[in-house]
Each structure stands twice: as structure tokens, then as C-alpha cells.
């Protein structure tokens, strides 16, 4: 059993983890940077330790400082949240050395799942479709051969990658060599690993992912799938559960594939398996595994009634999952909108500032995950996520209507937000009808919207 958890993160996810710890009867210690001494989570934990200056490299990204805080405060567990160091295998390694339970997979399982080329190979060994593509490419020549075989356009991807870094779409042979060198250099700089592989570029795809929990003592379960197709620059804008309107059989197939894949990796904790669903061909392919809690986990919680963060904590303490796969029942539909402190009209420029008014929506089927409060200064050093507005309803239409209402009811002053933008996205006929794909937001919606918004 765990006793005291170091929360090694900030913002809304620190608040979320603090709540889950409270419900699990665990004491909480929050590591903060100098810029977060007044954050909402500091009010909700048993103890706060300032580990470094505002710069993330010397605070939230510094594994040794996080461990110093954990050992000084006598923590026996560490929850990394998402982002920052949550997917760095050194962190579970170092936690193990210090006798601290890491809330997540072992370093080995994280390497097996986090490396895209390795995860692809594991999936293929299980007979899971990985789409048309390659293993790690030896160089430009192999890339050229692979691209000829797949047919342009193709996508170069960093094996160690994430968040779109080290990724290049290549439309014709002449672009390939340059793109290969640039993507490899970018990946080496971002992840210390320049290995690339290639996929056939799917022109009209939905991003669908499966939430999995593995307790390491025999159970691997899924909590249904999510659709995260509405993205901008590989950053999700709207997420919903379950994925809707999937081609026949695809939903069941990816659920089984995700459970089989995670089950084959000696994995413990929460994981997400991402898939690309080709709407035109009715096919799907495994993309990658995210070996951590995800921003959009609440939509899965709302449709299943299970608390993913509490289960993570139970698993880290060596306990089995509190439910079995037969107890996973999906009910209704949930949809989440990310509200950021950004100005969408100016290419989503972040606009940090002081929140002088914060009136969050409420009502049936509304959940708000946020670190906002009136008087809080949104620091300029980190991501600009202000709040996740999540709505659930008996079906997709009802959930979207509720989310619309919630976005309209949100009253924020002091900082600009993306709420009006998301409201317009939700009102678009293509979104209502599900006629979207991963590039719809950038290629179809945004050009028209930006023109109108700038004119206004």
C-alpha cells in the first residue's frame, strides 16, 4: 500500500491527481516551480515543495530535483501526470533506485511501448495491422525505395517521437532526401534519437485511440475508445468517447488489438493505443502507444464510470484493478473541449495574463478539470491549457449540445481563451455529422474561420 505521493506535474493535472490521491486516502506532496507557488493545486495538497525556478528545464523536467523533493518529503510514490518527464524511461529507473513506486510502467515496458518502431514491431508480431510502412530506415536510399513501394504521399516519423516533432509529410520524390535529413535532425535534437520510419500517408483518417489499464497481476482491460480527430498541429482540440460512426467491426477489432498488444508488453498502469482509421477504405492501422495518463482521459471516465487516476494509484501500490473487463459498460457519450489561453485569430498565440474573472459552467452532465481561479496569473512558461470542459449525455448529439451550452456559459476575463473558437467548431455541420478527418480542422475549418474572425 502507498502512503504519500509526490505529484510531479502542474496545472489541471496536478489538481486531478491531488483529488484522486485524496479519494484513495493518500497523502500528497506537490513539487512546484517558482512560478507555480500560487497554483490551485497548492491549496489541495498536504505539502508543497518548491524545486526550482520557473524554467521547466530546472524544475518539472529535472528528474533529480523531483526525486530530491520526493525523498526529502518521505514520499513512497511519484505520479508524473502527462507531458514533462512522464515518458522518460530514466524516471521509473531512478524511482526504482530510490525505492519510490512510479505511477506508470517500468522503464523497460516504457521503452518497449514508447519507441514507435519497436511498438510497431510488437504489434505486427501479434498480427495487428500496422498499416503500410517500414521499420527503422537505414538511410535516404532505403527511404526512397520504401516511398516508391508505398506510393506518395508518405509520412516520415521519428521512432522516439511525439507531438509532431521529427515528422514530415513528403508529397513527391524530389522532397524526400531533404525531408529525411531535416526530420532526422529534428528528432535527434528533440529526443536524442534520429531514427526514422515511414508510413503511407492516409489522406482522410480518423484518429481513434483505446484506453487500457493493466494491473500487472493478471488483468488487462480497456475502457473503450475515443475519437480525437479534431487536431491542430498534432494537438488535440476536441475529444470524445466512444468513437462514433466507425466502419463495421473496427471498434471491436481495435479494442481487442489494444488489449492484446498491452498484454504482450509486461506493462503495468494506464496506456493508450492510438489507431488511424481510414474512413474511405474502412481499414485501420495501429499507430503508437502512449505510456502515460492522457489529457483526454475524462471522456473515458464519464462513459465507463471508472476513475482512471485512482486505478493508476491502486496499480502502483500493487493492488489489482477494482473492476474486471466484464464490469466495463459504456453508457452514453462524452465530449471534451480544451480551452486554452490563446488568441486563435493570431495563429493561436499564447496570451498569458491574470484571470480577473472565472465563472465556470455547471449543471447536469458537466465536468470541468481546471487549475483556474480568479486572481490566478497564467504563467508564460508552460502550456496554455486553462481548462477542460467535458460534457456527457445519453447520445452524441446531447453531449455536444451540453458542451455547447457549457462553452457559452463560461465567463473568463483577464485572458483571452479559445472557447469562442471551439464553440464555432462544434457548431460546424461537418463536426455534427462526423464528416471530419485529422486535417479537417487545419485545412477546411481554420482558413475560413480565421478569415472571418480577423475581418470581425
Amino acid at each position, binding site marked *: 500500500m502507498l502512503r504519500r505521493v509526490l505529484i510531479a506535474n502542474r496545472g489541471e493535472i496536478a489538481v486531478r491527481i491531488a483529488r484522486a490521491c485524496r479519494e484513495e486516502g493518500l*497523502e500528497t506532496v506537490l513539487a512546484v516551480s517558482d512560478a507555480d507557488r500560487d497554483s490551485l493545486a497548492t*491549496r489541495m495538497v*498536504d505539502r508543497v515543495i*518548491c524545486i526550482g525556478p520557473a524554467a521547466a528545464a*530546472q524544475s518539472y523536467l529535472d528528474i*533529480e*530535483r523531483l526525486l*530530491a523533493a520526493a525523498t526529502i518529503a*518521505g514520499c513512497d510514490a511519484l505520479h508524473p501526470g502527462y507531458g514533462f518527464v512522464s515518458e522518460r524511461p530514466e524516471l521509473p529507473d531512478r524511482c526504482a533506485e530510490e525505492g519510490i513506486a512510479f505511477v506508470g510502467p517500468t522503464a523497460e515496458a516504457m521503452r518497449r511501448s514508447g519507441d514507435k518502431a519497436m511498438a510497431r514491431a510488437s504489434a505486427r508480431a501479434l498480427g495487428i495491422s500496422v498499416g503500410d510502412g517500414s521499420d527503422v530506415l537505414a538511410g535516404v536510399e532505403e527511404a526512397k525505395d520504401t516511398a516508391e513501394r508505398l506510393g506518395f504521399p508518405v509520412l516520415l516519423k521519428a521512432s522516439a517521437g511525439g507531438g509532431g516533432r521529427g515528422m514530415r509529410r513528403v508529397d513527391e520524390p524530389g522532397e524526400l532526401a531533404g525531408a529525411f535529413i531535416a526530420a532526422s535532425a529534428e528528432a535527434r535534437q528533440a529526443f536524442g534519437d534520429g531514427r526514422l520510419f515511414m508510413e503511407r500517408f492516409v489522406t482522410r483518417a480518423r484518429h481513434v485511440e483505446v484506453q487500457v489499464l493493466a494491473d500487472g497481476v493478471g488483468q488487462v482491460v480497456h475502457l473503450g475508445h475515443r475519437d480525437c480527430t479534431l487536431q491542430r498541429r498534432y494537438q488535440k482540440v476536441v475529444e470524445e468517447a466512444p468513437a462514433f460512426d466507425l466502419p463495421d467491426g473496427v471498434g471491436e477489432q481495435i479494442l481487442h488489438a489494444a488489449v492484446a498488444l498491452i498484454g504482450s508488453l509486461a506493462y503495468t498502469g494506464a496506456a493508450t493505443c492510438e489507431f488511424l482509421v481510414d474512413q474511405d477504405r474502412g481499414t485501420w492501422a495501429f499507430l503508437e502507444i502512449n505510456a502515460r495518463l492522457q489529457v483526454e482521459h475524462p471522456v473515458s471516465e464519464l462513459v465507463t464510470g471508472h476513475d482512471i487516476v485512482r486505478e493508476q494509484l491502486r496499480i502502483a501500490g500493487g493492488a489489482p484493478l477494482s473492476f474486471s473487463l466484464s464490469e466495463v459498460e459504456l453508457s452514453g457519450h462524452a465530449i471534451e473541449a480544451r480551452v486554452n489561453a490563446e488568441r486563435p485569430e493570431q495563429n493561436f498565440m499564447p496570451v498569458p495574463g491574470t484571470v480577473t474573472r472565472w465563472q465556470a459552467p455547471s449543471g447536469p452532465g458537466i465536468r470541468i478539470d481546471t487549475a483556474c481561479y480568479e486572481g490566478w496569473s497564467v504563467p508564460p512558461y508552460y502550456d496554455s491549457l486553462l481548462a477542460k470542459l467535458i460534457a456527457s449525455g445519453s447520445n452524441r448529439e446531447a453531449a455536444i449540445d451540453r458542451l455547447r451550452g457549457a462553452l457559452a456559459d463560461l465567463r473568463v476575463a483577464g485572458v483571452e481563451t479559445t472557447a469562442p473558437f471551439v464553440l464555432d467548431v462544434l457548431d460546424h455541420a461537418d463536426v455534427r455529422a462526423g464528416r471530419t478527418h485529422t486535417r479537417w480542422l487545419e485545412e477546411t475549418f481554420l482558413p475560413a474561420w480565421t478569415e472571418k474572425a480577423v475581418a470581425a
Partner: protein
Amino acid sequence: MEAEVMKALLEAFEQSDWQEMTVTIGGDHLYVSRRPDASAEALPHPSVAGGSLPGSAPAVSEPSPPSTAVPEGGNGASARESEPAPATGSAPARTGSAPTVTGQVADGVEITAPSVGLFWRAPAPGAPPFVQVGSRVATGDTLAIVEVMKLMNHITAPSDGRVDAILAENGAAVEFGQTLIVIDPEG
């Protein structure tokens, strides 16, 4: 908690140089603080009664020398103190008043911790300390070490002067921004 027990605890607190004390006996919690803005929010959740508390662990709020009891201004304050104003009322018990800081300390150059970590006054256990109160130092001299998981960060003098105050105990856990040493550049 029986009155006698509580009295004994409060006496022990008064005779100590502790800043805060949290005691849990069965379902009873006692929280005492010398800090003017202390609040009962520091109490643990009832559900964790019986477990030792974060505040009682060898800690950033560990006893420090009496002359150094009040953190220096904003950057010396612990995170708990810079918390957004707690909404709750008074603490279950409060004693004493905050000792004041000498004028000398307030005037000097404050050297703050560059990281969370452990504060060491000497290069090795048993070795003489880098500096004492009153030592003359030159710019760049090592004054102390803040250890972050075996990584030794040398804290150096930003200017010539005289060590006016050393505000953390040898081996104490410190937070980023906490004032460790004060140097009087005129001294």
C-alpha cells in the same frame, strides 16, 4: 486529546525552536504554528490519521536556528506561506509570536537556494565548514553546498564581504528560493 497531554505538547513546542508542530493521536489532531498566517489547512485528512504526516518528515520546515526563524521576504518564504489566502478560520492552537529578524540580516545580500535539496556547510562530513558567521569572503568563494540527489551544487559568494547570517542548519532540506546565507558587502 487530554488537557494534560496538550499542555505538555504545547510546553515542548514553546521550548523548541520549531516553527510548526503537527501531532496526531488517534483521531485527534493538534497543529501549532508560530507563523502569523498559519491555518488549520495544514492538518492532514482525517483518513490518514495514524500515518506520519508530511509536515513531520525531515523537512524543508525543519528546525532552523532561532535567530533565523522568519523567512526573509518573498523569496525566502516557504511555498505554504505564499499560498493563496486560506479561507478557513483560526488554527486549533497557536502559541508565541514570530521572532523578529535583525536589521543586519535585512540589509545584507541574500543568497538563496538554487534548487530543492540538502544544505551542507562543509565539503565533507567532519570537515570544517566553508564559512562561519563573521567570516570574510571574496567573490566566488564557496559558502556552502546544496545537494540534489548526490549532485553537489556549490553556492558561491556574489560579492566580497562578511558573512552576516547562515539561515539553514547543516544537513537541512531546503527549497528553491529559500535564503541560506546573508553577506554584508560593507562588512
